[in-house]
């Protein structure tokens, strides 16, 4: 089981090398994410459209892909207390993703190296290594 954050999913949508690693994990695991994920991915995709990174049609299809993504969305409320504890070293946003991974015993998949490092080293969260290929 994995928890996917917005940065990881956006890498997948943009078909980057990191995104290909995210895709492999998503294809082989049951996936979940807090509802925050939809807001963060939607906003970033919209901004890509406004800044010309994506064409209008690509923004539209990205929103469809976001909607249809085989990732279960989880309510924030059961995560809040654990997220509060994790917010000692994480933003409230990241703390929600980390709390879901921690409470469900899932592996966290993020495209944010700093978040990955902190979640792993300070809270013992199992974090996917998306950058192994970069090092080899």
């Amino acid at each position, binding site marked *: 089981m994995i928890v996917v954050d917005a*940065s990881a999913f956006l890498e997948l949508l943009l078909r980057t090398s990191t995104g290909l690693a995210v895709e492999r994990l998503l294809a082989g695991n049951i996936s979940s994410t807090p509802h925050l994920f939809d807001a963060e991915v939607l906003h970033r995709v919209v901004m890509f459209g406004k800044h010309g990174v994506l064409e209008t049609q690509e923004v539209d299809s990205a929103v469809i892909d976001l909607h249809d993504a085989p990732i279960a969305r989880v309510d924030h409320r059961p995560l809040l207390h654990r997220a509060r504890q994790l917010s000692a070293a994480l933003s409230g946003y990241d703390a929600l993703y980390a709390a879901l991974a921690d409470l469900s015993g899932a592996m966290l998949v993020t495209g944010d190296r700093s978040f990955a490092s902190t979640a792993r080293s300070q809270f013992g969260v199992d974090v996917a290594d998306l950058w192994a290929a970069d090092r080899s």
Partner: protein
Amino acid sequence: MLRRENQSESQTLRVLPAPSGCYRHPVANLQIKGLPDDVHDELRRRARIEGLTVRAYVQRLIEADQALPARADWFARVRGRRPVDLGGAVADLVIADRAERTPRSRRPRRS
């Protein structure tokens, strides 16, 4: 066809033939053999919580599953997307987006 008093032509009730052949229509039945006891117990528990029969609960699960594309179809669609090179990690932009949600003028100041 029956027509009630004061009823227009368009409101005419159409009485269909008795469903004498309804059992001749194919109705799919699904049986799951070898379901582990703990899975079955949890299935029954969840159906009971929702106030549904197991059959209705499972049907709802299947309908929810089919409301989205098959996983393989979704992955095939995503693989068809145009690669975009931002020259850096998307995570930096997501973090910047979060910061922008609080305009500078409304950020709390330390006294």
